[in-house]
């Protein structure tokens, strides 16, 4: 009887460990493939790992992905999450445009949203991100300082339009442009107050891509950006060669009035608002 008892309790122990290790979701490693860890937030109950494609938070449009894990390293896959980025400056604080949070399609644990940082942080002035989430009926919160560095090229414009309103316009795609007609995506927000930014509907973002290093030549078959079903702005960016391009911008409201930016002519080499691309 004794050997059997030892064997069966040994088996039970093994089974117990196997059962427990099944809790560790093998899917986890795949869902963040291609992304790099930027920051990890901690509170008493959970750990949140934040990821981006390039491993940084930068000025402009950032697609951010994160996973929430409890202290036993289990994923919290069905929380309701919202976030609020705030920049603390010496005299005041302000927020920036951000999207709601949803699950990345085809994943179980990966939450995603975008944030548009209008400026980079430094030693005195810093960005802080608050994430509020409800899981299993309980509300949790975590707040942490984050590093936002300046993007190497101009990818966001923050300006006052002719209608006396402040706008933020950021380039979302193409992230890896090619010599082709590229799909272009941008986001346009209006600053209602220091803390409130709302998406703008029905405007047109006119684009005129130029190569200043080559006599300021343009490219054919560009399509100005107009709003799509998901409220983001879509158009086509034609790039005829690699190198440094300046995408001159003009913003037109619903009536077609240009509220910011100038067209490029023989006398005017560039618009006052533009994005830059170098590939």
């Amino acid at each position: 009887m004794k050997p059997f008892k030892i064997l069966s309790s040994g088996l039970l122990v093994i089974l117990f460990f196997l059962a427990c290790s099944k809790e560790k979701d093998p899917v986890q490693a795949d869902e963040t493939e291609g992304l790099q860890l930027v920051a990890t937030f901690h509170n008493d109950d959970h750990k949140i790992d934040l990821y981006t494609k390039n491993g940084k938070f930068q000025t402009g449009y950032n697609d951010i992905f994160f996973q929430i894990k409890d202290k036993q390293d289990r994923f919290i896959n069905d929380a309701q999450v919202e976030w609020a980025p705030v920049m603390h400056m010496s005299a005041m604080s302000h927020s920036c445009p951000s999207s709601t949070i949803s699950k990345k399609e085809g994943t179980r644990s990966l939450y995603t949203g975008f944030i548009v940082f209008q400026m980079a942080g430094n030693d005195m002035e810093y960005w802080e991100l608050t994430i509020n989430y409800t899981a299993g009926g309980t509300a949790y919160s975590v707040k942490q300082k984050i590093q936002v560095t300046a993007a190497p090229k101009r990818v966001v414009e923050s300006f006052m339009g002719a209608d006396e309103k402040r706008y933020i316009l950021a380039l979302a795609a193409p992230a890896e442009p090619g010599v082709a007609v590229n799909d272009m995506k941008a986001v346009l927000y209006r600053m209602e107050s220091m803390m409130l930014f709302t998406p703008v509907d029905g405007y047109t973002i006119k684009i005129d891509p130029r190569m200043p290093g080559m006599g300021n030549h343009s490219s054919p078959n560009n399509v100005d950006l107009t709003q799509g079903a998901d409220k983001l702005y879509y158009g086509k960016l034609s790039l005829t060669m690699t190198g440094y391009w300046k995408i001159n911008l003009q913003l037109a409201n619903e009536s077609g009035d240009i509220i910011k930016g100038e067209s490029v002519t023989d006398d005017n080499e560039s618009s006052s608002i533009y994005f830059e691309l170098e590939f």
Partner: protein
Amino acid sequence: MSRLIWVVLLFFCDSASAQSDSTGRRDTIKISQLEEVIITGDLSPGKKATKPLANLEQYLEKAAAVNMIRRGSYAWEPMLNGMSAERSVVTIDGMRIYGACTDKMDPVTSYVEITNLEKANVHNGQTGSAAGATIAGSLDLVRRKNYFGKKNLKGIAFSGFEFNNRQKIFGAGVNWRSPGIYGNVDFTFRDADNYKAGKGEEVLYSQLTKYNVSAIAGLKIDAHRHVEASLIYDHAVDIGYPALPMDVSLAKAWIASLEYVRHHISPWLQQWQTKVYYNDVTHIMDDTKRPVVPIRMDMPGWSKTAGFYSRLQGAAGRHDWKLTFSGHHNYSLAEMTMFSNTPGEKDMFMLTWPGVQINYGDLYIEDIIPFRENLSAVVSTGIAVHNNLVNKRSGLESLQIFYPGMEKSNTRLLKRFSAAIQYRKDSWLLDAGLAYGDRAPSVSEGYGFYLFNSFDRFDYIGNPEMKNEKSASLNGSATFQQNGFMTKLSGSFFYMKDYIIGLPERGLSVMTIGASGVKVYGQLKNAAIFNTALDVNYRFAEKWYWTNKLIYRRGTGDGVGDLPMIQPFTYTTGFSVKVKAFSAEVLMNGSARQNRYNPDFGELALPGYTIFNMVVSRGFQAGNTSLQVKGGVENIFDRNYTTFSDWNRIPRMGRNIFINLVVGF
């Protein structure tokens, strides 16, 4: 001028044999009437080439149907019947070969040397178009042939010097033959500095250095079969193109082939030749020698062609027929990298030829039918499948900027047909023919991406969606020869539909800094080109020979007016004498004022000009060794002139004293 002499001599030889030889030789007469043959490779002493060591292009230019577009002192683009290279097929021994330069700085003729060749055959229109679909004609550079025979070893060494551009030419060749094996090896070296136009004006960036090596070997399998292998390697460096904003740092080509020949297969099948070939061309443009450029750029290009042909020749009843089945695959790639003037800024890169493939298959049949002793007909027809494939994704995406729906593959069916009759009566020889053919757009016309034309200063964009260009032509000639006198009047008329040409497109931003605009290739509803030539030659007192030639062309296009690059009225007259081993020649050639030109393509009116050349030569023989010394002066009066075919109107060479020495042993 001696080109004319050779053509005329062929007439004399063949007309003599026509009377006496009732079978089999008739075809030689017919073909030589429908084509021009330019003998290039005869460097043996005693031969009459005016300037034996002239470059290939200078030889070709003597043919009535051929003009050369000059962008420098080298690598001229041959135009047949007033039409540029896209409308003709240039082959080396039947092998298709494509240049690797988007700016046409490396026509096929620039990759061979006169020492590699025996002759050049020029066919007009679709006659004799065994090599493929064409509009203007075909130019076949025939490789120097050796053959089996009694054991023999011969060689030549040659050297030349031209004072104008200090061009040094030298080379040597050896050929051996035996009953079972034959072989040739030869090499040529050319090196020239800048040339001076008339009145001492130095034309900068017109230097060149070129090496060429070729070898050919044949092995007999049995009395009726043999194989032949041939290789040409041509390597040119530091070549200047004064008419263009860039020069060439390297242009090289490997041209290789393997051929299997069987003859006397059956009573009606006389010969079967099958050849497989491969050529690889590299062409690198370079602007480092130019002190001031808006932006520095590297523009390399590569073109690789692999192909084959299989040709059957036979006689059936009264018919002499030829059937050629051929195919080739070409891959053309060219790129441009521009170096930003702003420090720290990335280089700018684009594909000017987006990695285009040509996949081509062709079937051609020709038949010579003699009806009577003095009346015969030549009929030919050909059909081809021409496919273009842009497999390189980045290349396809570049073109899709202009043609969003463009597919990567496009296949065309090309057809051609020609018929001619020839009638001989007493001293007269008359021939008339008609032909029809179509062609596919060339790599640049279909797929070029911002190719800068420095003549009209436009960037050109290709158009892959164009239809085939079609041409219907009529040609005829009348020749009278009696005693020492010969005169020939010939003419041809080409009527083209969907004529491919660059058309300005407003609203497109130029790419090249300083360009005047962008043209996109499009098609004119129709265009017409008319050519006529008159030859009058007289040989008297056995040693004197007087030749004259007049050429007139006219070209118009619907909506475009006069077509660009059309030769104005041109005349040549020459006088030569030959006494034993000594000969001398005086030549005058010139052109009338050019008032028909097209300013939309950068052309301007041109004054007329007349140039005088003279040559003397003496041959010496000592046993088996022979020496020919030839010296002369071109442009004796140092006239500063330019012609319709000089790109950007660069002036031609001023007075040039030259000496050629050819030793045979």
